[in-house]
C-alpha cells in the first residue's frame, strides 16, 4: 500500500488531538470538542465547496471525537463523498469512517454500496482491497446480500492480483461467518480448493482459513483439499529454510501456513489413498525429526514457530490415533518438553499428553513420565500448569499406578491451591474408587481425603463412600474401625463426623467386641462431636443414636437420657426436635422385634452411575469435554464398583419434602410414617372462604360455575385454579359502579406467551352491564403474576354474568379457558337500616304478584346462626335485628343501585329447624318483574342452608 505522503500529514488534526490530550479535566475536553464540532459544522454548511484534503481532515476529526465516546450525527455524507475520491488517503479515511460509524440501516447504505461496487470493478488493486476490507469490517447482512456473489468471482478470477485475492478470501470468510446462507460456494468450490496450489504463499494462507471454515460445515464438498494440503505441506516441510524467502520466519519455512494446513487436515479422517497417507506420515516424521535438530537460532521466535508446527502435528497424530509409531514418538517429544525451561511449553506438553494418555497406543508411553509429572505437580510455580499436571495424572492413572498417583495427589492436596481443591478431591475420590482392588485402601484414602480437605469434600463424595461400604460386606468391619480411629482426633471435619455417624450406626457392632471401642465408648465419641456440628449432621447423629439402641441395648438408657434432654426434645430446629421426640418414643414404646425391623441395616444400594463423575463433569464444563469423554471410555474397561446413587435419591427427597432439611441424614426411611406437620395449606385454601365448609372446591373445571357461586356473597378470593394458572379476584362496589381486580398467576416456571383475556357480556347483558378493561401484557413469566382491572357499571337489572375468556400459549399448546365472572345483581346492594315498623309497612305495600317472590328450599346440614348471618351480610343487605317478631327469622333490607334506577329490596329468611326447610320471602318494590333476586337466593341454597 502506498505510504501516506508527507504533504498529507493533517496538521489541524494533530493540533486538535494534542489539545484534547492536554485537557486537564473532563469539562475542558467537552468544551474543546464542542468548539471543534461547531467549527466542523460551519465548514460543512454547504455554501462553499470543500477540497478533498479538508474534507478528509474534518472527517478524521469527527472519527476521533466519536472514538472518544461522543455522539456524531453529521458528516456521513462527506465521508461517503470521500469514497469517490481518487486519492488513496482520502478514500481510506472515507472507508474507515464508514466501517466505524455507519450502521447498517442508514439510508446512506445505497450510496456506500454503489461506491464499493465501483471500487471492486476498478482495476486498481489498492482500491479493490480497501473496498473488500470495508465489506469485511462492516460484515453486516446487507453487505453479504450485496456482495456475496461478487467476491468469489474476484477470488478465483485469473487476472486478480495476489493481494486482492488474499483480501477477497478473508472477506468471504467473514461474510460466511456472519451469514452462511448467503455465501453459496457451489460452482466455485473446486476452484477455491485449487487456490491451495497457488504460487503465492499469502494467497494460500488466506485461502486455507476460508477452506477450513467451509469444510467444517460441508466436509464432503471439500474432500479434495486433503491431498492438495498434504502435497503443499510436504513441499513446505521438505523445503530448505531459504526456499520460501519472504515466507520464512526465523529459519522456519511458512510456519503459519503449516499450522493451518495441519489444522485443516484435522477436520478429516486419515487419507485412504496409500500414497497420500505415506506422504503425510513422512511429513509428520520430518516435523518430529526437525524438533530434534539443534535450533538454528537462539531467538525465541524461532523456537516458537517450530514448536507451533510441532504441536499442531502432534494434535494431528492424536486425531488420527492410528500410527503407534508416531504416537510414541510424539509422546517422547512431549516428554522432553516436560522438563523444558519454558513454562508455556511445559503447559502445552502436559495438555497434549492428557489426550495422548487416552490412546491405547501411547498410554504406556505416557506412563513412563509419571515421575516428571508428579514433580511438576509439586514444583511448578504456575497454578494453571499444576492443574494440567493434575489432569494428566488423572488421565494416565490405571490399576498399576493408582496407588502411587492417589498418594501423590493426596499429599499435594495439602498444599494445593484453593481454586482447584474441589476438583482434585473429586478426582482422588474417583480414582480411588475405580482402581481399588483392596477396599480397605479405598476407605483409608477417602478418610484421608476428608481429613486433609474436608471443606472441599462435596456431599457426593461421602455419599459414595457410604454406598460402597454398605454394598461391600468385606470392608464394613475395617471401615468401622478406621472411622472410629479417625474420629478420635481432637478436631475432625464435619464430613468425617457424618461418615462416622453413619458407619458406626450401621456397623458399630462389628467393632464392639474390642473393649477400647465398646458401644458406650463409641457413643460418647460421637456425642462429643455433636455440639460442634451443623443441624443436618446433628440430625444424622440422632439417627445413628437410635440405631445404637437397636445394636446395643445396653446403651438405651444413656441415649434416651440424651434424647430427653431439653436441648434435643425442645430444640428450636423442627427437624431435630421431631427426630428426638420420635426416636425417644420409638425406643420406649416399640418392642425389640419392632425396633430390629425398623432399624434394620440399610439394604445395598442399586447400581448406578457414580454421582461424583457427574459432578466432575459439571464442574469441568463444556470446555474440558475431552477429559470427561476419556473418562467415560475408560470406565467401560475399568471395574464398576457396587453402589448406587444415594446422593441423587436424597436430593429428590429434599425437593419433594420441604419440611426435611436433611434428607441425606435419614437413615431409617421412616419418613413416610412420621407424623409430619400438616402439609402447608395451598394458597387457595388460605384465603378466607365463606363457603369453605361446604366441602373442597373442585379446582379445575372447564367452565367454572362452582367458583362463580362461591362469590355471590363475597368479593375476594380465588376464582379459578389449575396446574398452570391461578386467578384471584379482588373487587369493590360502590353504588352502581364496581371495580374488579383480576390477578393471573403463572404457577409454572415457563412463561405464557400471547396471553390475552377478553371480557364479554353475552346477549342482552350487553345493554344491562358495562364492563371496561385494558388489555394485559402478552407475556407472563414463570411464577409471575399480572393484574387486570375491570371497571363495571350496572346500567339496569341483569340476571346473566359476564364471561371471561383467557387464551395463552403454554409450551406451544394453546390453552383456552372460559369463566363466568362473579358479577351478580346483589353486588350493587346498598344496605339500608330501618325499624320494625317501617319494614312491615313497606312489606305490606308490596302485595302485587310480580313484586313478590317466595322460595322454599332445603338445607343440607345444620343451620348455624353466625354462618347464616355472615352470608346474608355478604349478600350486601343490612341485617335487621329485632324486627321480626320471631327471633328465629332473619330480616334484611337493601337498595339495589343501577344507573337507571334504584330499587329497594326486603328479604325474610325463615329457617324451619324441625322440618329442615327454609322459607324465603322477598318482596320487592319494583315496577316490573324482578326475576334475578330469587335467582341468587337460589345460589344461597346449596351453601348457606344445606339440609
Amino acid at each position, binding site marked *: 500500500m502506498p505510504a501516506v505522503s508527507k504533504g498529507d500529514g493533517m496538521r489541524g488534526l494533530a493540533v486538535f488531538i494534542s489539545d484534547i490530550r492536554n485537557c486537564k479535566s473532563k469539562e475542558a475536553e467537552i468544551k474543546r470538542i*464542542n468548539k471543534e464540532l*461547531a467549527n466542523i459544522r*460551519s465548514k*460543512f454548511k454547504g455554501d462553499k465547496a470543500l477540497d478533498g484534503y479538508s474534507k478528509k481532515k474534518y472527517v478524521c476529526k469527527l472519527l476521533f471525537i466519536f472514538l472518544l465516546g461522543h455522539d456524531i450525527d453529521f458528516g456521513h455524507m462527506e465521508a461517503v463523498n470521500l469514497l469517490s475520491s481518487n486519492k488513496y488517503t482520502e478514500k481510506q479515511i472515507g472507508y474507515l469512517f464508514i466501517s466505524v460509524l455507519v450502521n447498517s440501516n442508514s439510508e446512506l447504505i445505497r450510496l456506500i454500496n454503489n461506491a464499493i461496487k465501483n471500487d471492486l470493478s476498478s482495476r486498481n488493486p489498492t482500491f479493490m482491497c480497501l473496498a473488500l476490507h470495508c465489506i469485511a469490517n462492516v460484515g453486516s447482512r446487507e453487505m453479504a446480500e450485496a456482495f456475496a456473489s461478487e467476491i468469489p468471482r474476484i477470488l478465483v478470477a485469473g487476472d486478480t492480483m495476489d493481494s486482492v485475492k488474499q483480501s477477497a478470501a478473508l472477506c468471504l470468510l467473514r461474510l460466511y461467518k456472519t451469514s452462511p446462507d448467503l455465501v453459496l460456494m457451489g460452482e466455485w468450490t473446486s476452484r477455491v480448493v485449487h487456490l491451495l496450489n497457488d504460487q503465492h504463499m499469502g494467497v494460500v494462507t488466506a485461502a486455507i482459513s476460508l477452506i477450513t471454515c467451509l469444510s467444517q460445515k460441508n466436509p464432503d464438498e471439500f474432500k479434495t483439499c486433503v491431498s492438495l494440503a498434504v502435497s503443499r505441506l510436504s513441499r513446505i516441510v521438505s523445503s530448505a529454510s531459504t526456499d520460501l524467502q519472504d515466507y520464512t520466519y526465523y529459519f522456519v519455512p511458512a510456519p503459519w501456513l503449516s499450522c493451518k494446513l495441519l489444522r485443516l487436515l484435522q477436520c478429516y479422517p486419515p487419507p485412504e489413498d496409500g500414497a497420500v497417507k505415506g506422504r503425510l506420515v513422512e511429513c509428520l516424521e520430518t516435523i518430529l525429526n526437525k524438533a530434534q535438530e539443534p535450533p538454528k537460532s537462539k531467538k525465541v521466535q524461532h523456537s516458537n514457530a517450530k514448536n507451533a508446527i510441532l504441536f499442531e502435528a502432534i494434535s494431528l497424530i492424536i486425531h488420527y490415533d492410528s500410527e503407534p509409531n508416531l504416537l510414541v514418538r510424539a509422546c517422547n517429544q512431549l516428554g522432553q518438553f516436560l522438563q523444558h525451561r519454558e513454562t508455556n511449553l511445559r503447559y502445552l506438553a502436559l495438555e497434549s499428553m492428557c489426550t495422548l494418555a487416552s490412546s491405547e497406543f501411547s498410554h504406556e508411553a505416557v506412563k513412563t513420565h509419571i515421575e516428571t509429572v508428579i514433580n511438576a505437580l509439586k514444583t511448578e510455580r504456575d497454578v494453571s500448569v499444576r492443574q494440567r499436571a493434575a489432569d494428566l495424572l488423572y488421565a494416565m492413572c490405571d490399576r498399576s499406578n493408582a496407588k502411587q498417583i492417589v498418594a501423590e495427589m493426596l499429599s499435594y492436596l495439602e498444599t494445593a491451591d*484453593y481454586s482447584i481443591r474441589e476438583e482434585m478431591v473429586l478426582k482422588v475420590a474417583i480414582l480411588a474408587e475405580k482402581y481399588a482392588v483392596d477396599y480397605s485402601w479405598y476407605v483409608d484414602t477417602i478418610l484421608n481425603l476428608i481429613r486433609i480437605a474436608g471443606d472441599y469434600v462435596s456431599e457426593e463424595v461421602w455419599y459414595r463412600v457410604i454406598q460402597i461400604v454398605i454394598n461391600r460386606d468385606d470392608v464394613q468391619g475395617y471401615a468401622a474401625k478406621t472411622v472410629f480411629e479417625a474420629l478420635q482426633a481432637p478436631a475432625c471435619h464435619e464430613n468425617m463426623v457424618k461418615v462416622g455417624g453413619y458407619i458406626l450406626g450401621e456397623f458399630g457392632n462389628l467393632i464392639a467386641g474390642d473393649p477400647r471401642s465398646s458401644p458406650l465408648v463409641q457413643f460418647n465419641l460421637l456425642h462429643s462431636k455433636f455440639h460442634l456440628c451443623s443441624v443436618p449432621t446433628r440430625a444424622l447423629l440422632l439417627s445413628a443414636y437410635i440405631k445404637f439402641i437397636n445394636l446395643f441395648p445396653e446403651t438405651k438408657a444413656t441415649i434416651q437420657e440424651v434424647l430427653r434432654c431439653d436441648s434435643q426434645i425442645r430444640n428450636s430446629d423442627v427437624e431435630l426436635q421431631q427426630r428426638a421426640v420420635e426416636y425417644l418414643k420409638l425406643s420406649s414404646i416399640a418392642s425389640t422385634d419392632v425396633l430390629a425391623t425398623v432399624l434394620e441395616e440399610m439394604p445395598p444400594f442399586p447400581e448406578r452411575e457414580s454421582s461424583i463423575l457427574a459432578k466432575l463433569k459439571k464442574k469441568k464444563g463444556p470446555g474440558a469435554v475431552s477429559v470427561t469423554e476419556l473418562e467415560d471410555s475408560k470406565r467401560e474397561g475399568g471395574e464398576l464398583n457396587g453402589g448406587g446413587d444415594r446422593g441423587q435419591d436424597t436430593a429428590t427427597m429434599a425437593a419433594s419434602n420441604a419440611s426435611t432439611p436433611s434428607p441425606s441424614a435419614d437413615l431409617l426411611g421412616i419418613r413416610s410414617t412420621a407424623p409430619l406437620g400438616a402439609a402447608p395449606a395451598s394458597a387457595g385454601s388460605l384465603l378466607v372462604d365463606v363457603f369453605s365448609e361446604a366441602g373442597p372446591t373442585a379446582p379445575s373445571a372447564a367452565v367454572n360455575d362452582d367458583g362463580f357461586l362461591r362469590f355471590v356473597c363475597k368479593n375476594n378470593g380465588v376464582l379459578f385454579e389449575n396446574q398452570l394458572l391461578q386467578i384471584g379476584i379482588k373487587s369493590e362496589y360502590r353504588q352502581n359502579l364496581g371495580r374488579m381486580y383480576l390477578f393471573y398467576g403463572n404457577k409454572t416456571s415457563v412463561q405464557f406467551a400471547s396471553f390475552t383475556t377478553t371480557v364479554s357480556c353475552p346477549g342482552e347483558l350487553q345493554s344491562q352491564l358495562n364492563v371496561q378493561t385494558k388489555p394485559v401484557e402478552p407475556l407472563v413469566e414463570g411464577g409471575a403474576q399480572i393484574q387486570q382491572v375491570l371497571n363495571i357499571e350496572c346500567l339496569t337489572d341483569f340476571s346473566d354474568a359476564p364471561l371471561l375468556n383467557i387464551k395463552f400459549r403454554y409450551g406451544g399448546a394453546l390453552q383456552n379457558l372460559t369463566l363466568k365472572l362473579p358479577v351478580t345483581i346483589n353486588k350493587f346492594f346498598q344496605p339500608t337500616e330501618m325499624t320494625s315498623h317501617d319494614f312491615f309497612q313497606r312489606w305490606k305495600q308490596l302485595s302485587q304478584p310480580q313484586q313478590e317472590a317466595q322460595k322454599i328450599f332445603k338445607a343440607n346440614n345444620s343451620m348455624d346462626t353466625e354462618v347464616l348471618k355472615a352470608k346474608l351480610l355478604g349478600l350486601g343487605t343490612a341485617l335487621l335485628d329485632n324486627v321480626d317478631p320471631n327471633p328465629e327469622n332473619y330480616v334484611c333490607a337493601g337498595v339495589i343501585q343501577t344507573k337507571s334506577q334504584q330499587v329497594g329490596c326486603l328479604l325474610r329468611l325463615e329457617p324451619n329447624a324441625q322440618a329442615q326447610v327454609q322459607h324465603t320471602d322477598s318482596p320487592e318494590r319494583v315496577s316490573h318483574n324482578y326475576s334475578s333476586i330469587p335467582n341468587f337466593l337460589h345460589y344461597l341454597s346449596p351453601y348457606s342452608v344445606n339440609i
Partner: protein
Amino acid sequence: MIGGLFIYNHKGEVLISRVYRDDIGEAGLKAEQPIISRSVPKPVSCLKRNAVDAFRVNVIHARQQVRSPVTNIARTSFFHVKRSNIWLAAVTKQNVNATMVFEFLYKMCDVMSAYFGKISEENVKNNFVLIYELLDEILDFGYPQNSETGALKTFITQQGIKSQVPTKEEQSQITSQVTGQIGWRREGIKYRRNELFLDVLESVNLLMSPQGQVLSAHVSGRVVMKSYLSGMPECKFGMNDKIVIDKQGKGGGSEEAAKSGKQSIAIDDCTFHQCVRLSKFDSERSISFIPPDGDYELMRYRTTKDIILPFRVIPLVREVGRTKLEVKVVIKSNFKSSLLAQKIEVRIPTPLNTSGVQLICMKGKAKYKASENAIVWKIKRMAGMKESQISAEIELLPTNDKKKWARPPISMNFEVPFAPSGLKVRYLKVFEPKLNYSDHDVIKWVRYIGRSGIYETRC
C-alpha cells in the same frame, strides 16, 4: 462513627488518607478484589487499600456519574463531597447519622479554606502536614470534635513551631477556651475602633414559563458578619421577620403594625451560627449572641413568598425551516430606577447542530460560544425599569438524526444592590457591660447584595 477519611484528586489518587478505625475495608470489600486464595490475615494497610480502591473504582471512575452523595459498597458507606476537582470521602462501616457526617465534611471544608484558601490539589499537597494536624484535632476516633476555625487557630498555626514555649497562662487559656462554654471567642480581645460589618447576601432562584408564569421561585440568603469588637460583647440582631413584627404589632399600636406588616417578610426556614442562643430564639424569636471574632456567617434562611424578581426575560423563538432559527430575547429590569444592577449575563442555549450565528444587540456584548453551545450576552451595568433586547439568527446543519432539540431554558446571572426577599435589617445592638463603650460607639456597616442563583426562563 467515621472510620476513615480520604481526600482524592480528580484522577482518583489519594492525597490524604486518615484511618480512625480498622473495620473499614474488611470482609465485604475483599469481594471486590479478584479471587484471593490465601487466608493469611492481611495487614492494616491492605484493609485501607481496599476501601480506598473501592471508592475510586465505584465512584470517581464509575462509568455513570454517581449522583448520590452516599455510596454503599460491600456494606461500607462512603459519604463524599466534591470541592472543584477534589473529592472528600468519609468512610464508615457503622450505621452513622449521615447528616452528622456531612456536617463534619462541610465544616472540614470550611476549616481548610480558612487555613489555606481554595481547596485545590496543589493547596492540599502543599499543606498536607497541616491537614493531618487539623484532622487529628477535629476528629477523634471517628467522633467529630471542636471544628471552630477561631478556636483552632489559637493552637494550630501555619507559622511553624513558635520559638518560645507558651507561658502557663497562655496554655491554660487555650485549654479553658477549647473546653469552655464559649468555644468560639477568646477573652481579652481589644480594639481601638469597635467596628462591625454586616452583609445580607441572597441568591434568587427562578424557573419561569415562556408565558411569564412563575413555576418556582425561592431566595436563599445568608447574613455574613465581620466583627471587630472588644471584650465579650452581647449582640442583638433584628430584622423585619413577620412573626416578630406581628407580635410587636399586637402589643403596640395597630397603625404601626399595619405599616410595618407590609414590609415584613415570611421566613420559611433558617439556621444559625452556633453562637446564637437558640432558646431565646425559640421563646422570643430574638437573635442574640456573643459574636466570634472576625468573619462568620450568622444565619442562613430561605423565603418563597413575595419575592422581588429583579429581571424578567421574554424569549421569542421561531423556527424558519429546517436550517434556520430566529431567537429574540428581551430583558426588563424590575426595580427602582435609582439602583444599578451589575454583571448581567444572559445565556441562550443553541441547538447542537448550529453551524453559524448572527447577533444583534442594543446594549452590551454578545458572542456565540461554540464550546458551551450557547450565546452569551453580557451587560456591565443596567439601571432599574429599563429594557434591552438581543436578536439572533442561528443557522443549522441538517442532520440525519431525528431527535428534536430539547430547548433548554435561558439562564441569567446578575448582581443587584438590594435583597430580593425584601429582608431589612432593623437593628443590631451591641452591649458590653464590662468595658466602657456603648452601642453608639460601635461603627456599623450594612450592605445588601442580591445575586442570581439558578435563574431560568423556558423558551
